[in-house]
């Protein structure tokens, strides 16, 4: 998938959706070719530039959790304001199997929604475990439901859906769901748990990793994990 924008390009914000007290979705005016799992670099001139996964490419859509200075600044932007994007970068998810189980933790659910949409368009069955620490952190559940996915919610404190971490809940339900491919995006520990589970079950698995991104184009070495470049070889990787 070639990069559409090598330099940051302006995109007007069409709509801002509050997903939770600390997560907002930014629907932008405009579109470009991209695959689920690919990411963009979002530039706020005078502030910084950070990586975010695409939740949709038409219209271009990002779902952003407020976790620090940059995302806080971003959360202040309103419809009509401009965001600058370059990308898309990296290798996304590959569709495989007829029944996909997606496991997302935190804002990691965001790229999985894009994946679910593509999978449903192709007539595949999709189950998704949305992991969160507590009920008010659960995001995008309605969107998955609207796509006709089987939605399972897992909160660590049990305040909504199943109690437990997303991979644990997924593993418990695995026999019932009986998927033929696993996909996960979320914190490192979660990815590791999913990887182990897939190994035990002999299921193909694709994981979306994170790392500190600078160039996003595979030259600076900032994002490397044991010789593997998250920005260029990833962020999605088969275990």
């Amino acid at each position: 998938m070639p990069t559409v924008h090598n330099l940051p390009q302006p995109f007007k914000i069409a709509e801002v959706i509050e997903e939770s007290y600390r997560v907002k979705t930014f629907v932008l005016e405009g579109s470009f070719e991209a695959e689920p799992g690919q990411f963009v670099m979002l530039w706020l001139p005078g502030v910084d530039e950070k990586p975010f996964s695409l939740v949709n490419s038409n219209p271009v859509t990002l779902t952003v959790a407020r976790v620090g200075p940059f995302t806080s600044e971003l959360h202040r932007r309103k419809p009509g304001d401009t965001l600058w994007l370059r990308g898309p970068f990296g290798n996304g998810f590959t569709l495989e199997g007829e029944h996909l189980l997606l496991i997302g933790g935190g804002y990691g659910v965001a790229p999985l929604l894009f994946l679910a949409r593509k999978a449903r368009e192709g007539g595949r069955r999709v189950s998704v475990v949305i992991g969160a620490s507590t009920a008010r952190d659960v995001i995008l559940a309605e969107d998955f439901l609207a796509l006709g996915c089987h939605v399972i919610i897992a909160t660590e404190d049990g305040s909504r859906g199943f109690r437990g971490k997303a991979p644990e809940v997924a593993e418990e339900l695995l026999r019932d769901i009986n998927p033929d491919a696993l996909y996960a995006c979320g914190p490192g520990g979660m990815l590791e748990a999913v990887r182990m589970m897939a190994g035990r079950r002999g299921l193909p698995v694709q994981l979306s990793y994170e790392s500190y991104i600078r160039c996003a184009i595979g030259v600076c070495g900032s994002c490397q994990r044991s010789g593997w470049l998250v920005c260029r070889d990833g962020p999605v990787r088969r275990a």
Partner: protein
Amino acid sequence: MKREPDLSVELCGIRLRNPLILASGILGTGPDLLVRVARAGAGAVTTKSCSLKPRKGHPNPTVLDWGHGLINAVGLANPGLEEMSRIIAQAKELLKPLGVPLIASIFGGKTEEFAALARKLNSLPDFIEVNISCPNVEAEMGRPFATDARMAARVTAAVREASQVPVIVKLSPNVTDIAYIARAVEEAGADAISAINTVSGMVIDIHSGRPVLANRIGGISGPAIKPIALRCIYEITRVVKVPVIGIGGVTSGKDALEMIMAGATAVGIGSAVYYRGVEAFGQIAGEMRDLMAELGYETLAEVRGLAHRA
């Protein structure tokens, strides 16, 4: 029948299986990555430039493709000498069986820092490359030493004195007379010269009316700078005897041969990794072999400096 072209070269008494050297700042952040580059076909690899203390570098954007090359102002982000020594030690171990030498790039704000880095690295790397030419930390550190012949010579002499291994001094193209600086560092004891570091430039976004790099000014690399690099190598090799590593805009075997014709002994590869991936090394080496066969050259010694003929 001609023999299969031989790409090997000797740099300060150390044999490289081919002249293609991973340039500093590209993928040189970890041992596995350095090994991956070696396996992909590099003749030698250089680490990201390292300072005594860790450096966070500049905020993003730090690296961009502006259409005819890259521009970067990473600001010499690096984990500092201690962590880098571990990386170098591990990399050295893994590279040994591959026969691929390791170059450790160092930089500092003062002459003594350079010397301390060289002293502490000891004979861990196969070469030390002295980066006195980064254009992207000027606001913080003043003009690079490579823009002043006296300063460049002083740093060179200090590192030469402190180092156990051959010393390569990396020069900047952002000067009035690069040959003059080259002569100064040669006289001060440089065992080799590498050139060029990036060309100072700026990219502006008209929608925001701002320079795109957080640092505003950055260093240009890639195809746009190849003719500048060739001219610099030509000017330097006209006046120095030490071997020169030609760097700047090399993305093909043809480019690499041009660099050697300009007078280079070895060839640095940086931005090509963006254009062609890590596979660039093997591909460029293959293209060099094919072109040498086509042109009837058996060794790079026959090619070196051809452009200087009357």
